[in-house]
């Protein structure tokens, strides 16, 4: 089966089409030059389309995709990271970092206690390094708690 590459090729071609459409949306301005704002992006979309066609018609062998369990783990990791990105500002550094690091650690090596210690240690250790050695203005805890 060489499905991965064929599918990837289709995605690339669709992406290149969307990019082409996007290029035509670019508004020109009173300042103009012989090439303009559209030519270079259109050239790129053209080359990308050719590449996509190559993937569809001359695909490589499929890579080893992970099983459902691992894939689930990766999805969880992504969700945790996204949540972390949103939580960092309102909740401060320490709590989200400890939770996020602990979950990631648990996913690499599923033992609860070492993972919890890793999360706690990384959160406090990195905070001390960032705040005092590097002088970053990180906020440690939720604003509301600090009054």
């Amino acid at each position, binding site marked *: 089966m060489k499905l*991965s*590459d064929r599918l990837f090729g289709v995605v690339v071609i669709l992406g290149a089409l969307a*990019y082409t459409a*996007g*290029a035509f949306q*670019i*508004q*020109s*301005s009173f*300042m103009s*030059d*012989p*090439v303009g*704002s559209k030519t*270079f*992006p259109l050239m*790129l*979309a053209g*080359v*990308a389309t050719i*590449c996509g066609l*190559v*993937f569809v018609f*001359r695909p*490589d062998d499929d*890579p080893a*995709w*992970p099983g459902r369990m*691992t894939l689930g*783990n*990766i999805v969880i*990791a*992504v969700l945790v*990271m*996204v949540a*972390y*990105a949103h939580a*960092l*500002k309102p909740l401060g550094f320490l709590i989200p*970092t400890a939770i*996020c*690091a*602990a979950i*990631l*650690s*648990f*996913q*690499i090596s*599923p033992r609860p206690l*070492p*993972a919890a210690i*890793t999360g706690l*240690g*990384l*959160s406090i250790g*990195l905070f001390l390094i*960032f705040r005092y050695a*590097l002088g*970053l203005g*990180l906020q440690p805890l939720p604003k509301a708690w600090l009054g």
Partner: protein
Amino acid sequence: MELLSNLALGFSVALTPFTLFLAVAGCFLGTIIGALPGLGPSNGVAILIPLAFSLGLDATSALVLMTAVYYGAMYGGRISSILLNIPGDEPALMTTLDGYPMAKAGRAGDALVLSGFASFFGALFATIGLMLLAPLLSRIAYQFGPSEYFALYLLAFSTLGGIASRNQAKAALASCMGLGIAMIGLDNQTGMPRFTGGNLHLMDGVDFLVAIVGLFAVAEVFVFIESHGRESSIGVKLGKVTLPARDLAKGIGTMLRSSVIGFIAGVLPGAGASLGSFLAYMGEKNVQGEKGGFGTGVPKGVMAPEAGNNAAAGGALVPMLTLGVPGSGTTAVLLALLLTLNITPGPTLFTDRPDVVWGLIASLLIANFVLLAMNVPMVKMFVHILSVPAWVLLPGVMMISFVGIYSLSGSYFDLLLMIFFGIVGWIFRKLDVPTVPIILGILLGNHMEDALRRAMILSDGDWRFLFGFRWHAPSDAYEFYSAIPSSLLALAVAGFLAPIFLRRVIKKPRAVSD
């Protein structure tokens, strides 16, 4: 004598206590980064850059720190290659071939010491080469116009693909993606937004650092989750470390040949350290022949790739500093650092900012000796660091990446973008799509387009200008003006096509992404 006065200027910058401290700190951090599997020179430097900014370092200091990390990572990569049979970073891949068998045969200490010396030899050779070659090249590059630069960028992208992937179409696609992402944001020439989809966060374009930390560091975390950190435990015990003087003396020829090959591979745009160590190893294997026993754990087999990759690391700085076209993934990151500090590498750098260039060269010379000291007598210290398990290391890398990117802009949007790039990087690694061209594309996209547009303004829209033809007023016709653009374009085409044929002849090292 100009060289000596320049060097004197360089050392006057490099020998200030603070710069010296940065060089030593950089060497130390770099060796750790190189030694830890999963952290290589390019992602190591990438996650440190935001921190360098928040420290408020000036251009010279930041560059000294980061290149010391870069050189250090090149030294450090060999440690896990030899002890764990896992390359600490991609260029150290070839070192596993003879390093690990040596370690299994109880000669881990010898392998580390010999490869440490070979690294020193290669890096010193390349730094001297940089010192001699860079000013010459910058004098030539001084005359480059937009058509030459456009051709040069094209050359960099087409040759980069050749070694970065088994599939040229995938390498080309990666370049296109990077260049395409670079187009997002305000158009330099007209000031009109492009591909922003009305999203205000995208007006300034996609930050290069967000992409590189995502593609390298975050993607690495996914790879480790997939493998459950299986590939991380010390396999070989390190005994007493002594100096195998006889092996070292016998290997001088090997180190010299490998350094020359590595340096040349490094200078070529788009090639880089992985290619340097690969060619050095293969070349030396041919020189030694069957009797050399390469692959069974011979000292020369660890010295050749280490001299080669360290020489290439130095060589890759030559096109980055003189032309503004990086020779590898890590030099691309260094280029980004310079651009962010408002320094434009290129021929004018040598005349406008000699303090930066020569301060850097002097620091590299010093860093080499520091690294030799750290990597030979003190190598045991780094071996202990290797025992940090993946389940502590990777969450740590992840958190540092988050804070680094967050400290740049303070926006969650950049963090989400970073995660997105992480997912893309993981999928692309599965599909054998190289990620280094994406990075290079994001970095150089606007420069490449600018070169094209300026060339067309100069020629009033005549495309023959790109091939070195120019309007000649007296004869009222187009005349061949310079052979440089067409030769560069021809090289670009050859560089793109050659791997398709060569790949059947030589087997390339697995993924290349230094």
